[in-house]
């Protein structure tokens, strides 16, 4: 297995180079000139000053040379500085990453648990009113625009019922000592339970908004996978052995049915770790999704390149973890010399 992990890790190199180059090229060919306007050469800058700014940022160099310098910097941990804030990009991303990770994990937990429960119930109650209602709910989850759903959650649960806050990651009047940057961990480590529960309250609505779509996908996948598994011969054998229906479902059917579901959950988590633009914007969640969009609009090349590289790494690692999880869930799958079977 270690050889397999090593091989997959080595595959990261061409993937990351390819992704970086594609983004590098697209940004330079199609984006507006970053030297124009506020935050770059300045709003009073004339063409000569803008040219000097482009020179000093290497933007007048040939693209291959620019790319080589970017890769060289990235390998040594230097992803450059943001044109807008002039701060190191790595520092900016890592300041926002904890918020994104916390939101992604929370919404994945919600979507996985609910999605699997709904999918299983729907499959064992196939073609009943429960199944139909569940599938209507799932269709609602898939088709509803996330932006609208997020605003509705705010209006109903925050504006009308006053159950949850409307946005932000924590009540900023609460003083939280930063140790790791993760509010959930820091509040627990410092024994600041008031802040911990306040953080959970802030986390609830964005997690639900973000998790709804994933939950619907997971539920549909679980249902179809369960239906397929429940028709297998070994399930009939298990029932014939006199095992209780509960044991048949949980020990025999669900475990096998979960294999494709895990792939979906892994991919969803990978996607969410790259930042959820709309949810983060609506809930004023200070993650990397919102930051990336702002950077694209500002033609902030170093930030966009770094974020894409970062997200690609996260995505590939998540996929690797998912592949390894396959082995845990399905004993028939082994890693051979040629890789996974």
């Amino acid at each position, binding site marked *: *297995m270690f050889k397999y992990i090593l091989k997959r890790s080595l595959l990261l190199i061409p993937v990351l180079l390819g992704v970086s180059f594609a983004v590098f090229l697209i940004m330079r060919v199609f*984006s*507006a*000139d*970053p030297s*124009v*306007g*506020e*935050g770059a*050469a*300045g*709003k*009073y800058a*004339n*063409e000569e*000053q803008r040219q*000097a700014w482009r020179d000093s940022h290497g933007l007048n160099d040939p693209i291959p040379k620019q790319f080589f310098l970017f890769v060289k910097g990235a390998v040594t941990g230097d992803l450059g*500085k943001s044109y807008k804030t*002039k*701060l190191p990009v790595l*520092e900016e991303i*890592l*300041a926002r*990453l*904890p918020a994104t*990770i916390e939101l992604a994990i929370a919404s994945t937990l919600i979507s996985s648990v609910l999605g699997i429960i709904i999918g299983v119930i729907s499959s064992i109650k196939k073609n009943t009113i429960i199944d139909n209602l569940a599938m209507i709910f799932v269709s609602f989850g898939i088709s509803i625009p996330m932006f609208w759903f997020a605003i509705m959650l*705010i*209006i109903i649960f*925050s*504006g009308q019922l006053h159950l949850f*806050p*409307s*946005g*932000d990651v924590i009540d*900023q*009047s609460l*003083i*939280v*000592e*930063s*140790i*790791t*940057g993760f509010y959930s961990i820091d509040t627990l480590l410092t024994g*600041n339970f*008031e*802040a911990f529960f306040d953080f959970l309250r802030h986390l609830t609505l964005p997690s639900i908004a973000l998790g709804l779509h994933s939950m619907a996908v997971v539920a549909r996948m679980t249902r179809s996978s369960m239906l397929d598994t429940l028709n297998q011969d070994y399930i009939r054998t298990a029932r014939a052995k006199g095992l209780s229906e509960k044991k048949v479902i949980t020990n025999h059917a669900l475990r096998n049915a979960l294999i494709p579901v895990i792939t979906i959950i892994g991919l969803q988590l990978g996607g969410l770790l790259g930042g959820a633009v709309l949810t983060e*914007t*609506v809930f*004023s969640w*200070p993650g990397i999704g*919102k930051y990336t969009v702002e950077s694209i*609009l500002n*033609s902030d090349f170093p930030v966009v390149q770094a974020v894409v590289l970062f997200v690609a790494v996260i995505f590939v*690692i998540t996929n690797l*973890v998912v592949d*390894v*999880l396959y*082995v*845990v869930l399905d*004993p028939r799958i082994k890693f051979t010399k040629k890789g996974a079977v």
Partner: protein
Amino acid sequence: MKIFKKTTSFMLSLFLLFTVFFCGCFNKSNENGGTEKKDSKSETLTIAMTAEPRTLNVPKMEDSTSSFINYNVFETLVDYDKDLKLRPRLATRWAVSEDGLVYTFDLREGVSFSDGTSFNAEAVKKNAERMLANKEECAFCEVIFEGLKKITVDGEHKISFHLDKKCAFFVKKMAICAFSIVSPKSFEGKDINDTNLKQSGTGPYTLAQTGTGFVKLISRENYWGGKPLIKTLIFKSMPESTSREVALKNNEVDIIEGVDVNSIEKLEKEFTVKKTVCVSSHYIALNCDNIENPEIRKAIFQMINIPEMVKTISKGTTPHIKQFLPEIIIPFSNVIKYPEFNLENAKDASEAIKKLKKELKILAVSSSGSFGGGRVLAEKVQAYLEAAGIKTKIELVDWKTYQTKTKGEGRDFDICFGGWICDFMDPHNFYSIFSEKNMDLNYPGFKNAKFEELLEKGVTTFDENERKDIYSNAEDVLATECPILPLYSAPAFAAFSKNVKDFVTTPTGSCDFYKVSKTKD
């Protein structure tokens, strides 16, 4: 199998630990690790902003959000009162030499920075030198110190700026936020881009904590103007307007800025909604390279019913403006007349327009702005022109692309929209954007010898009455030559709880929070 489970669990744990450690190493958001766990609600004022500050590094400031926050931490030499007249801040008096080349400021005594060091003339000089040494990093450096020959410290609390040419508005430029005075102890020996800079100012508040999406300020006991009434100020970024409104209703925040015009009526039932007309001008610009004849430009403007258009897009909250220079600076709309809506007159010229261009290209910004942004304006203008028989095409682009397409030689439009929020309260700062020396801000590409001459004269004329005449003539050139047509001064709406007292924003967009108080619920 068990080995695989263990390995997987181990890998996951390692990944989680690594992420936590990695982020923890780089996280610098908190500088306040006391035993106190919560700021008292009645002593805390939370303000929801539409955007995050771009930088709190004073000389590099360019955006209004950064200035709004820093205004309470750092102070300039002079400032404006509510009528936009100069008032003392860190300078108590100022004088201009007879030849108009030396500007001397008497500085306030007994003022200290929040790091304990004293404010004096040397500190002012060091701040100016820091900006001058980092011209390319400080967008306002050349604007503020244009023509500066030398700076002399004439005493512990007296400083003079020597220019090589007269500048009638040099003192006004001393109110630009980017030249707020920072304690030299904070930056001496450090790079201007040093991320660990902890800047100290002379203002009523001091920077306590910054994080992604929020900034926290704490009041200073020994502020020279008296102790602020509110202990903690929290500025948080909430870009979505619905979220801001719900946050205000839920008592999560006390003040929200950027209130949507559609929500004003609803919010007024529970909260105080305040309108501030910023010192700004929005206008329609015609590309003078493509439409060279002023008569044709005039005819195009006569096809657009500006009062009706502004009333519609602003839902009746804002009137149209009759002159480009905000009337609060100098009013002369009674003598200057821009083309008014007159379809009959305009129709006579429509054939000439069609001959010149089969289709007029309207360039606008796609993202939202005041009153729905450029798209709404473009569609309204298109409707008026099409009604007059002129074919048009709208091109919507992002802000960066818009700036590229409206600059210099690469201007790619027939009609576009511009807006100018002044950096200092002088007519020159408004009119100079249409100077041919400033083609990067001159959207219409306007070139006029008389206009240039008037601008030059305005810089060196100190007499206020003479200056009034000069700029009245400059406005008249704009009204006659028609490169632009004024639209409106963008208002800013803020809503706040009834228990917040004395929240006043100035036309420059700043707010002295040290005068604001909050009663208990």
